[in-house]
């Protein structure tokens, strides 16, 4: 069976290896360059927090590469389309399942070996790309303090492995049901995109209950710190009433501060009158916890889809 997988899929693996090599050729030299430029830039100002403008000069010429980094978020979908969707669907469309299912190998074993190889390949490629991107983004993570934002959280760490495995499992499962390549491709792309969006925007902010920080408005060193993820923010007046920013009207403010409205000292004035800012956020040190939770979710979805594929193939009736 391993030989069959190798013969059938070596071209795909070759292309994927080529793509990965190309990415490395671009990211390794520029990453080395970026890292040395960064360490030179922060030498003067101690810690990254104190020199906020260090990124402006440093990243000015890296716009295209930032786009490329962002694009690696799409790569798992490509695995789903090229490795996952055709795995069962292309065989059934070409009728070659009649050939392979009448050799001395059970359908279960046939699918198990093929699926295992494809999922392993997805995990390896996903991990390799993520390693490159995570390493390359070291200075960006340090300066921008935005590891939770889209394009950062979903291209670094563990989650790209989860996405890649999920995408391939999705392709296999959908292909086994659709039995035609084109519908399988469309459904794989559609479902993958929908799941990514749903989890990015709906689920991810709530993996753990957010922390809350309350501090006087206008204070200089306000919590939270580091690469945190703001979920929600509101304003409390002196007696503790919560205002959404939209519901604030001039009359809501203390009389003493109204004349300052729109100017810089306004916030400090409110602060001195007992007004506070309330921030709900995911703290920076939850980054890896969130990565692990999200990866586990995608792996669980992948497991369900693989199961679906097995049921569909076992039940297939020609």
């Amino acid at each position: 069976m391993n030989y069959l997988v190798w013969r059938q899929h070596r071209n795909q693996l070759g292309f994927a290896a080529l793509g990965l090599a190309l990415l490395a050729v671009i990211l390794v030299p520029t990453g080395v360059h970026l890292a040395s430029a960064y360490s030179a830039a922060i030498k003067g100002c101690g810690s990254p927090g104190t020199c906020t403008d260090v990124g402006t000069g440093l990243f000015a010429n890296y716009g295209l590469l930032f786009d490329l980094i962002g694009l690696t978020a799409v790569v798992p979908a490509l695995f789903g389309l090229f490795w996952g969707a055709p795995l069962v669907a292309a065989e059934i469309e070409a009728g070659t399942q009649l050939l392979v299912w009448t050799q001395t190998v059970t359908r279960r074993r046939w699918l198990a070996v093929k699926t295992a190889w494809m999922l392993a390949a997805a995990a390896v490629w996903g991990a390799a790309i993520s390693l490159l991107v995570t390493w390359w983004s070291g200075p960006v993570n340090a300066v921008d303090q935005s590891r939770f934002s889209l394009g950062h959280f979903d291209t670094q760490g563990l989650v790209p492995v989860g996405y890649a495995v999920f995408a391939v499992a999705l392709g296999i499962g959908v292909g086994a049901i659709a039995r035609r390549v084109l519908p399988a491709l469309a459904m794989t792309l559609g479902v993958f995109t929908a799941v990514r969006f749903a989890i990015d925007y709906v689920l991810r902010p709530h993996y753990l209950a957010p922390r809350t920080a309350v501090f006087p408005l206008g204070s200089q060193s306000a919590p939270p710190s580091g690469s945190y993820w703001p979920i929600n923010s509101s304003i409390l007046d002196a007696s503790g009433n919560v205002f959404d920013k939209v519901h604030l009207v001039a009359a809501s403010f203390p009389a003493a501060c109204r004349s300052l409205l729109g100017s810089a000292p306004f916030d400090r004035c409110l602060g001195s009158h007992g007004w506070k800012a309330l921030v709900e956020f995911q703290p920076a040190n939850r980054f890896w916890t969130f990565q692990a939770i999200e990866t586990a979710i995608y792996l669980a979805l992948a497991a369900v889809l693989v199961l679906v594929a097995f049921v569909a193939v076992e039940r297939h009736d020609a």
Partner: protein
Amino acid sequence: MTGGSSAQTAAVEAVGLTKSFKSTVALRDCTITVPEGRICALVGPNGSGKTTLLRCLAGLARPSAGVVNVLGHAPGQDHEFLANVSFLAQDVPLWKRLTAKDHIAIGARLNPRWDTTGARHRLAQLEIPADKPVGTLSGGQRAQVGLALALAKKPKLLLLDEPLAALDPLARRHFLGVLAEDVSEGGLTVLISSHLITELHRVSDYLVLLAASRTQLCADVDDIIGSHRLVKCPGGGGERVPAGVKVVNSFRSARETTMLVRAGAASFEPECEVHSVGLEEIVLGYMSQGAPADLRLLHAQGGEG
């Protein structure tokens, strides 16, 4: 050949086999027995359920009702069954981008008995390029690759769905010759579906005829030929059929009635001519049952028996 199948072990047995897909019934109440060591022709009009029957026997399709027994097992996902049964599907599905050599090498790794040298030798003999992607080969060459793979598996039961369709007459004769040779070595039973009755007759000694999704005939070819007669009686009445004679098909003109009958040694009225009849005519007679009169082929044949 004794003609009786009960004395021999059956390679294939189906009782009341029915297969329906959603609303259509592809095969209805099919009961057949094919003894071991035979080359059995599976004939019938398009849509009569030949492919469905073969796929049920190969374990690719699950019967909706009835019992199937292949080499003493119900078809399923076990190694013994899979190793013993070889199936060549219609249109010869192969992995287009892989070469014939690749296919042979894959088969060698997926099957316990595999005749790599035999398969390569066969393709070399037919001058089929083993190093080209099979997608670039002609239909006939692909069919030969498929047949070589099916034989290389060294099966006990070989199921072939329309294998002759893509072959030229010379290749057909060669292939059927190879088949007969393999069967004569013993331990192999072949079920081969085709419309080419005359060519099948050269090698097959057993026949299953499906029509209208049912089994019409399932017997030794010699017995089939021996038990059928073409009877021509003058006049358009034609209802003077002796007891125990089954009229398979009949055609009436004003002058005479022509009937294909299945009978033992029944005697017809003296004014009737009784001819022996060839296998193809018998098969066509069954296949055109219930067809409009002008589509029945019976009247077209003289009594060349």
